[in-house]
């Protein structure tokens, strides 16, 4: 007995609820006017998927899904940092971070 079982239909109903709740940030992902909006919505969808992985871990009793949740948390962080760097690169990435401010090729944003 490695876990206390919860009734499976209850967990499945909760999974459906989480998936339906992920539709709200999905709408923002589709219509969000700026890339930052979309990054925020993507972040939130990833959190919903993390909750889904946790619920599946509870439903099936397999701890592997918790590893998936941890990896998902790391990947979300890396993806958000990458988008932020693409939008506005940090000063340390500028070629000449002199006293007069960075002057060099601007970031693609």
């Amino acid at each position: 007995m490695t876990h206390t079982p919860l009734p499976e239909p209850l967990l499945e109903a909760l999974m459906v609820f989480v998936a339906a709740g992920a539709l709200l940030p999905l709408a923002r992902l589709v219509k969000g006017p700026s890339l930052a909006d979309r990054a925020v919505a993507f972040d939130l969808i990833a959190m919903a998927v993390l909750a889904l992985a946790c619920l599946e871990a509870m439903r099936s009793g397999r701890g592997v899904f918790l590893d998936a949740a941890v990896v998902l948390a790391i990947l979300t962080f890396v993806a958000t940092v990458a988008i932020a760097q693409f939008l506005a690169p940090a000063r340390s990435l500028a070629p000449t971070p002199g006293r007069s401010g960075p002057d060099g090729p601007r970031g693609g944003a």
Partner: protein
Amino acid sequence: MEPLAYLTLVPLVGGILLLTIAGLGVLRMPDVFLRMQAASKASSLGAALVLAAVALHYHSVGDSSHAIAAIVLLFITIPVSTHLLARAAYLTGVPLWKGTVQDELAAAIRSGEYVPPVSEESPPPEQAPQGRRPPL
């Protein structure tokens, strides 16, 4: 089915409700930054509650420690990534909400205290709010 198992339902349902509220905030808030605060705070607490429910659910240390590690990881990374994204959104000229009452970074940029790395071709936000670059 012992009744103690239903104790895990409390953080589970609470966390799921918080995640849904975060989604509602992201959809309904008027501004990137307001959306960001709705998303970051509510979703980090919501995901942490769901993970805490899983940690209560499993009786083995090996599985519960994964959930607790994920909670710690989320509480470290979500503020950092939200801060970075807010900075990037501001510097790329995403418009602020009309009801914004305070913009301290605009004052710091105007006084030269902070030199933004990418904002040379886009005018400072307080001088020409209409003339800013369109957000990506």
